[in-house]
């Protein structure tokens, strides 16, 4: 902690003012409104609203379609995280080896960080569109009926692939930084002891990378929960049916499209709780890491 400070009361408040005004107006006020609205129900014409207690929550949590969305979000998020982490770790281990052109490979694997999730979806649409996409047509030509606009399982697969594709470069950057911080001497010692490359990876490298991997797991889950809205919106709009509707997409449809404010607000509050838990887990881990 700092021991020497400047004097003054007005100046620091003035410096903090812009940030505090913005967070107050656009973060805390709406978040408070969400909590407030989650206890209200509006009549069909939106003219009056009455206090209904926990009813909105009870309705949401007992709605089978919401529970399906929740389960789908779980499958979706875990698939995206596992896929994006696995591919990134594999590529980072390869790129960390002493080979010619390693830097070029790194650059060519880092740039997709710049691609917006919605744009990643568009690129995958160009490949897997049943009529204009090269792979979509190929699948159909091979006798596999492919149309992600009609088949729910195919839609979900495509959304998972596009979302994971976009996230690999982010994970790659962190895994590479993690690998580079492992002391060479440790690896050489293992090699001299006669451990095979596979064994060296699983007994030396992977345990040393596990803090990075855990941090990335949380980040990837948060990404899959929230930032994939753009992927879903531009690729499937939650369809066909509800087969790609995640929880976040549902808040959007219920609130913006169906104007069901009470229910949308209750869903928002449930999602806030999920974010709080995930963030808390992440920071607990960071605290622990700072100490060793």
């Amino acid at each position, binding site marked *: *902690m*700092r021991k*020497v400070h*400047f004097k003054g*009361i007005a*100046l*620091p*408040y003035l*410096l*903090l003012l*812009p*940030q*505090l005004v*913005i*967070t107050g*107006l656009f973060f805390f*006020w*709406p978040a*408070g*409104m*969400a909590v407030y*609205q989650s206890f209200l129900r509006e009549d069909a014409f939106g003219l009056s609203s009455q206090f209904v207690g926990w009813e909105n929550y009870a309705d949401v949590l007992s709605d089978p379609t919401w529970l399906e969305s929740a389960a789908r979000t779980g499958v979706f998020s875990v698939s995206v995280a596992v896929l994006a982490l696995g591919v990134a770790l594999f*590529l980072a281990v390869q790129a960390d*080896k002493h*080979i010619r052109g390693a830097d070029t*490979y790194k650059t060519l*694997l880092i*740039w997709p960080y*710049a*691609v*917006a999730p*919605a*744009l990643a979806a*568009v*690129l995958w649409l*160009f*490949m897997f569109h049943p*009529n*204009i996409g*090269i792979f979509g*047509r190929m699948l159909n030509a091979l006798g596999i009926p492919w149309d992600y*606009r009609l088949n729910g399982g195919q839609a979900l697969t495509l959304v998972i692939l596009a979302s994971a*594709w976009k996230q*690999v*470069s982010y994970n790659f*950057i962190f895994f590479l930084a993690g690998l580079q911080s492992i002391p060479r001497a440790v690896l050489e010692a293992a090699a001299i002891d006669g451990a095979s490359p596979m064994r060296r990876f699983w007994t030396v490298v992977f345990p040393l990378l596990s803090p990075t991997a855990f941090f990335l797991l949380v980040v990837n889950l948060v990404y899959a929960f*929230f930032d994939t*809205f*753009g992927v879903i919106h*531009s690729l499937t709009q939650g369809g066909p049916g509800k087969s790609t509707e995640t929880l*976040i997409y549902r808040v*959007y449809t219920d*609130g*913006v499209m169906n104007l069901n404010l009470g229910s*949308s*607000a209750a869903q928002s509050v449930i*999602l*806030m709780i999920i*974010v709080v838990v995930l963030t808390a887990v992440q920071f607990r881990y*960071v605290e622990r890491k700072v100490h060793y």
Partner: protein
Amino acid sequence: MDLAEKTRRRRRREAVVTHLCLILGVLIFAFPIYLTIIGSTHDVNTIGRGDVPMVPGGEAVANYTQAWEAGGGRYMGTPAGRMLANSLVMALLIAFGKIAISLTSAYAVVFFRFPGRMVCFWLIFITLMLPVEVRIIPTFQVMVDLQLINTMTGLVVPLIASATATLLFRQFFLTIPDEYVEAAKIDGAGPLRFFRDVVLPLSVTNVAALFVILFIYGWNQYLWPLLIVNDRSLETIVVGLTKMIGGGDSQNEWNVIMATAVYALLPPVAVVLLMQRWFVKGLTETEK
């Protein structure tokens, strides 16, 4: 065969496998872009028929000009030139805005002692847990009340609060030695002078790294512009592009859509490639 020769052969075999894996990885990421660039150089019928070509065609100039000047898709949307300008303004304002207000807030929290200091810090910190996505409807209502719908102000200002940037600058400011502050005080320099002449110059690297991350964050915004903007003259390119695609009809003007996609990709990719070193350092240091 002697051992040395064996080892050499094994090494070479391993190197080949490594190269193959990496080339495959690079291809997985480059191929979709290649396909899009190729598509943007053919006429609408070639793509609409589904004869996806693997080599460039001769329609590049026509497609890119149409996308730039008129737009395309079923609704003859907004010209890409307009959308790019909007995205650029939005991304730059978000990046600079976030950096500016985070610098000043972190400076206040670190270099002053005042009542409510930690409360302010926690208020900023907690916003990490309130992403736009979980407060869509009430935030929208606030925007309506403040008459910020369909304005650049509405697009930018609510996004420039930044817990991450404030945390990063706070961490960095804590490493500035107390002696610097004492020396400044002895020389009679006030807090604003110290900020301008000592703290800002020391922060340049951090600002540059953060700029790349925040520029891309701003450029890639999706849900927010979708909610706040329905006036075409304010359309940003990422949202505008997906509006051109709509439900994914085969009759879409795919050639123009693909040209627009290339426009949307170029600026953020260029920023990442040009500032790669700073950006990688900044990313791994900020988010840990």
